[in-house]
């Protein structure tokens, strides 16, 4: 082959397989737990949120300062989980995807998605991208999913993966494993009949689908009473699943049943709502499930199925999964026996066994209480889990009928919130092997942002007020606090570039009912001088 022919062959290969030479490879993703970048929304497949970086410590964190900020100019919910790979940060807003320099915040490229039709209007947000083999994949509010070349932002493919006419929106960071993209629609109380599915990374074509609300004849369908009650039964996918890579087991968190407060419309346990569903990642076959809140009447989703880790309990090593829910309980469950080792109340609990009445029942947690979308961080070094939570009680009422109005919340009742002054938040640190409480941090407002732990004994998180917190993980003391002017309810990550440690914080809007400090979507990067 002469030089010209070789050149043509190289160009042709590059066009046929854009970005294939680039990573992260499957091997890199499998070892994301030891990476000092941030390859997955919760750092690694197991969702441990622990980074082996120790330049920032409780002794020097007081001299942290912001080094740059990126303004996304977007007033939708700022729930993005940034990804950092090969010295590039990827963040999203509802329609835009940005590649940024993670040290200077300069934009390398921007991609803009133009909705192709009706957009599902429940819970409008985007949580971010996933990356593998030089490709980024993300979903959109119109039910479409698309892939971009990570180097250039050029669009590689697009597929209609979900049906916005059925109120399905794709908001979570997808999970990429081998040749699969795993994603499912959110929006449990907007008329969704939930599912999670796998698509080919190469072109987005469908591979398997698991119905989180069973179809007729599928196991679990008998837990719903009349067949019609499953049609808008909820069970949305709110958070990216965790993955046990060695076994190929996918840990899916399934959202609440609908109508939320009217249990008589759906008699039974309502599988697989508010449950952990464990699937074979390659086939979607159900392996086992465990329901945290059967027959829920309080919108107490079970969004947390991570971290997965190995705990030393009673002198024995146990592979465990963390289950936490909006009911205010964090549970540690044996992945082999499926037995619960312990559960810890991380928010106020009152009248939790009472169903809503037409007159109303005062209950804690309220409609948005307990543990929301942010999973606990786990420090293997300190044998410690740290979980953010919401304290905001109120009165649940049910209605006498379930009425669905297209595009609106399908609640079958209502919730009257305690005054905002009575809302607050907690970070609770527990000894991971025993569940013993180590310390608690009380925030003036609900705590919703993600939490990151480091080998430098630091915790990084943020508050609804807009305060970024750098804390001593050993005692919960705040070492550094910085208010950037927008609520912090999304990603907070730490990574290294050329050997130097940084922390990036997403701030902006929370959903209106949180009454958080408003702001435009912003990424602020912090570092030591």
């Amino acid at each position, binding site marked *: 082959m002469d030089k010209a022919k070789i050149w043509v062959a190289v160009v042709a290969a590059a066009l046929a397989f854009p970005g294939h030479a680039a990573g992260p490879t499957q091997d890199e993703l499998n070892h994301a737990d030891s990476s000092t970048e941030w390859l997955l929304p919760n750092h690694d497949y197991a969702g441990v949120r622990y980074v082996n970086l120790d330049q920032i410590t409780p002794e020097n964190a007081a001299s942290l300062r912001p080094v740059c900020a990126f303004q996304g100019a977007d007033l939708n919910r700022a729930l993005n989980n940034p990804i950092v790979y090969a010295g590039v940060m990827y963040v999203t807003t509802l329609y835009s995807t940005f590649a940024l320099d993670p040290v200077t915040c300069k934009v390398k490229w921007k991609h803009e998605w133009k909705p192709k039709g009706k957009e599902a209007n429940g819970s409008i947000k985007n949580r971010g991208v996933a990356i593998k083999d030089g490709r980024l994949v993300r979903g959109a509010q119109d039910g479409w999913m698309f892939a971009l070349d990570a180097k250039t932002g050029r669009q590689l493919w697009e597929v209609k993966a979900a049906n916005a006419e059925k109120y399905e929106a794709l908001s979570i960071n997808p999970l990429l494993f081998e040749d699969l993209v795993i994603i499912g629609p959110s929006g449990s109380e907007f008329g969704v009949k939930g599912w999670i599915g796998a698509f080919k990374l190469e072109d987005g074509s469908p591979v398997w689908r698991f119905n989180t609300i069973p179809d007729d004849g599928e196991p679990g369908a008998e837990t719903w009473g009349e067949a019609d009650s499953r049609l808008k039964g909820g069970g949305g996918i709110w958070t990216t699943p965790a993955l046990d890579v060695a076994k190929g087991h996918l840990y899916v968190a399934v959202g609440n049943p609908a109508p939320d407060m009217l249990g008589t419309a759906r008699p039974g346990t309502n599988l697989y709502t508010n449950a952990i569903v464990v699937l074979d990642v390659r086939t979607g076959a159900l392996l086992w499930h465990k329901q945290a809140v059967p027959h829920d009447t309080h919108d107490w989703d079970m969004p947390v199925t991570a971290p997965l880790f190995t705990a030393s309990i009673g002198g024995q090593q146990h592979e465990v999964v963390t289950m936490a829910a909006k009911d205010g309980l964090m549970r540690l469950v044996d992945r082999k026996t499926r037995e619960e080792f312990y559960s810890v109340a991380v928010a106020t609990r009152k009248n939790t066994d009472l169903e809503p009445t037409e007159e109303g029942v005062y209950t804690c947690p309220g409609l948005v209480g307990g543990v929301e979308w942010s999973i606990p961080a786990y420090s293997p070094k300190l044998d410690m889990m740290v979980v953010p939570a919401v304290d905001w009680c109120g009165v649940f*009422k049910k209605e006498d009928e379930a009425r669905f109005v297209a595009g609106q919340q399908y609640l079958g009742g*209502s*919730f*009257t*919130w305690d005054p905002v002054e009575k809302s607050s938040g907690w970070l609770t640190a527990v000894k991971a092997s025993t569940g013993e409480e180590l310390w608690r941090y009380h925030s003036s407002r609900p705590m919703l942002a993600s939490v990151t732990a480091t080998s430098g004994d630091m915790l990084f998180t943020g508050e609804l007020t807009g305060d970024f917190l750098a804390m001593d993980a050993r005692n919960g003391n705040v070492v550094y606090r910085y208010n950037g002017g927008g609520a912090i309810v999304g990603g907070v990550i730490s990574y290294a570039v050329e050997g130097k440690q940084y922390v990036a914080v997403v701030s902006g809007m929370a*959903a209106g*009912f949180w009454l958080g400090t408003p702001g435009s979507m912003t990424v602020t990067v912090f570092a030591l001088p």
Partner: protein
Amino acid sequence: MAFGFFLAASAFAGDALYTTAQSARGEETYQQYCAACHGTRLQGVPAAPLTGEAFRGRWEDGKHTLDDLYYIIRSLMPNNAPGSLSKAQYADIVAYILKTNNYPAGEVELVPDAAVMKTVVLSPH
């Protein structure tokens, strides 16, 4: 159904669904209880817009009745205290939303009667 349609035709002369006085009352109530989330001009942020393209797409798609709108507002709003206003106040707020979306005013007030409101399908004006 036929009776309902006839009733609607007699209750609302032409397309007019409310009076100017009622929408003015509704505006006052809206500014007190709704504007903090839906905006002083119903433009939305952080909550959903109640006017313009977003309102047309969400409500005026030929699949929603006036009662659907009234039901959602009376059962879920204000967000911090759902159902805490009177039926008349909710009807006034609906009148104000109709006015802002170019529905014509008339001589008869909108009454909070589900049977009547169910006969009106929302459409762009």
